[in-house]
């Protein structure tokens, strides 16, 4: 059992002991990559007994969603306690017990907009890793214009009939449920008439197709809805709409802001990719004698270090009350920097870098994948629009 003492050092000692007791040594491997992430869900196959045990032990304590209220399956930690927990996970090289779009996105949306009954039903399924969710926002052809929702839910009295398609739904082919923006009023103005709907991926008429990127296979899918029946009130007595009918855009906007606030971590990942010095050690000696490569490497290193400091500074600011729309800068600068970094790495590796099967491993697909960084989650152009209009308050006309 965990000691939820408010005294920080006592809490830290307790959490350390608890992690060491439940997260097997075999999991605590700093080299574990993408493959070791536990996503949960009905169709999940644990990579090991240790992975299953760790997730279940954490779920039993609410520690898969440490800051959610206990009644919804969380642990009710304070921000300071959560920070200590994350620090100890990192220090012990322990993986987070569960990752999911349910934890990152649907949960916060339900906590902010859901009914008590919806929260009681859906949130514990998420924290226990029973249901895996995916996100259905973007539509083919809509691009950055998320409010341009064409997928429609027709009102058939006691149920909706959903028809349309979504794109860029990560892991839709492995998810159990989807939270999606659908148009419930076709006559309302663009940002009105959208609802935030929960749909069972096992319902008749739901199909998915994986998307292949220029960098190779990807977690992205297209998801198709062909006359999918969604009850207005389901067998648990819950509405399948989160928030008010036709006010789904409010929920989506809330989540988009939440997402950008979280981007600090993501951008840190972008920066953490590869240390240039370490990378260079594995390259042909003398390659950096070229002033073109050398100048670019120097400039990139300067900008990377300054950007890392900015993530730290904005992290501190966020703790003191949030950074608001200025967080769009982190997305913009971090993704553009990451593209520059991989362009440089490709230049440094020369002819080795251009082979899928070369000695540089996954460098080429990683490089190509960076090109999506400045598109997904809001393009660089959208970020600059946000900064110029909302932060700099430049006029619209």
């Amino acid at each position, binding site marked *: 059992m965990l000691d939820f003492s408010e005294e920080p050092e006592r809490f830290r000692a307790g959490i350390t002991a608890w992690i060491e007791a439940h997260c097997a040594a075999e999991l605590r491997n700093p080299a574990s990559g993408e493959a070791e992430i536990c996503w949960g869900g009905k169709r999940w196959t644990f990579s090991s007994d240790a992975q299953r045990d760790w997730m279940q032990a954490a779920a039993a304590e609410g520690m898969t969603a440490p800051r959610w209220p206990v009644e919804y399956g969380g642990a009710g930690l304070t921000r300071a306690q959560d920070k200590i927990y994350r620090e100890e996970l990192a220090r012990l090289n322990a993986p987070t017990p569960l990752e999911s779009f349910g934890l990152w996105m649907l949960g916060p949306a339900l906590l902010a907009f859901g009914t008590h009954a919806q929260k009681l039903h859906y949130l514990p399924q998420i924290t226990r890793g029973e249901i895996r969710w995916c996100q259905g926002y973007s539509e083919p052809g809509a*691009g950055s*214009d998320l409010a341009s929702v064409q997928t429609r839910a027709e009102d058939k009295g006691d149920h909706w009939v959903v028809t349309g398609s979504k794109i860029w739904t990560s892991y839709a082919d492995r998810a159990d449920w989807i939270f999606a923006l659908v148009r419930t009023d076709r006559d309302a103005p663009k940002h009105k008439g959208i609802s935030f709907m929960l749909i069972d991926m096992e319902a008749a008429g739901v199909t998915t197709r994986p998307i292949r990127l220029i960098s190779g296979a990807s977690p992205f899918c297209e998801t198709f809805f062909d006359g999918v029946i969604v009850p207005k009130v389901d067998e648990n007595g819950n509405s399948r709409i989160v928030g008010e009918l036709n006010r789904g855009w409010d929920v989506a906007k809330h989540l988009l802001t939440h997402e950008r606030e979280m981007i600090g971590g993501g951008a840190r990942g972008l920066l953490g990719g590869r240390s240039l010095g370490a990378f260079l050690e594995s390259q042909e000696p003398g390659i950096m004698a*070229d002033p073109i*490569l050398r100048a670019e490497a120097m400039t990139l290193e300067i900008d990377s270090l300054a950007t890392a400091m900015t993530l730290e500074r904005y992290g501190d600011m966020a703790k003191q009350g949030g950074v608001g729309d200025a967080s769009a800068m982190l997305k913009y600068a971090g993704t553009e920097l990451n*593209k520059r970094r991989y362009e440089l790495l490709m230049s440094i590796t*020369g002819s080795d*870098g*251009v082979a*899928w099967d070369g000695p540089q491993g996954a460098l080429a697909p990683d490089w190509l994948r960076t090109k999506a960084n400045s*598109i997904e989650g809001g393009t660089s152009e959208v970020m600059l629009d946000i900064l110029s209009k909302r932060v700099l308050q430049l006029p619209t006309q």
Partner: protein
Amino acid sequence: MTQSLIPTPDEVMLRDAARGFLADASPVSALRANRAAGRPYDPGLWRDMAQMGWAGVLVPEEAGGSDMGHRAAGILAEEMGEVLAASPYLSTAVIAATALRAAAHARLSDIAGGDVTYALAVDEGTKHAPEATALRAEASGNGFRLTGQKRFVADGASATRLLVLARTSGNPGDAQGLTLFDLGAERDGLTRTARATIDSRDHAHLDLHDVAATGADVVGEVDDAMTILRPALNAGQAALAGEMLGLSAGAFGMTAAYLKERKQFGRTIGSFQALQHRAAHLWSEIEITASAIANAGRVLDETPSEAALAVSVAKARATATAKLAVSEGVQMHGGIGMTDDFDMGFFMKRARVGAEWLGDYGYHAARVAAARGF
């Protein structure tokens, strides 16, 4: 310079004919089909190109060539670049033909006829550096025994013959002591390993183990390969720059069309001024690069011994411009530009390979600085 930098009526006709032919015979979908079929190019396409005189574009008429010159060769490369047409054109019709022509070699007529394809095997490290050649050709009886390896040999797995740069004296780093061999690709002791490069074309590693060669296999003089190779590399670099200019124009054309048709936030995205200015900047860059490439062709035709500066300006500009064109191309297309179903990725991948082949930006920048006295 006596020629103007704008195309002659003949060159305009050649460009139009090439464009028409390639639009039908080799749209970007042909590259996709090659990739699916696991072949670096369509032999039928190359046969057709040879019949039109493209294989012999730099071969004298007396050897059966069309002898149209480097400007024309560049125009053909540019048109191929615009649709990403894959063929042994650069390796065979430009590089090998220039080398063999410099040596007045009998096999030139085979090139013009499309009966032979060549690959140039120069580099051994990850960067272009002919002088760094370490692959040894040891004198042995009347001939030589070649041992060593070559990397990033364009068309190396599919070519019927190989031009192999070997060291017959001196040490890696010396421009002297190099000898160019013309070897059949199936010779004993020679192993070719195709690499899966991102542009879905043929780039191979060669391993030579005690490969026998005779004096007749030497192109030009022993220990003096650079006299033959330098013009061939200049010609190849200029034509590759032409291909990359075409590639840039092809990517830009797709992007400009998309800007005119795509609607977001209730507006055609091409009406957003930030995108307009970036598109206009990119167009300007392409225009300026086009001038450098026209000039490189002119200098190669008129005063080839002074071509290094003009060629390096062209290749460096082409590399930078193509990088910008494909980056902006993907970004302005948004998510669709990232999907493999869409063609932009092919442009981006070929641009990266073209950036490295025959000298990267830094290699050519250093040549420019040397020529300009700093």
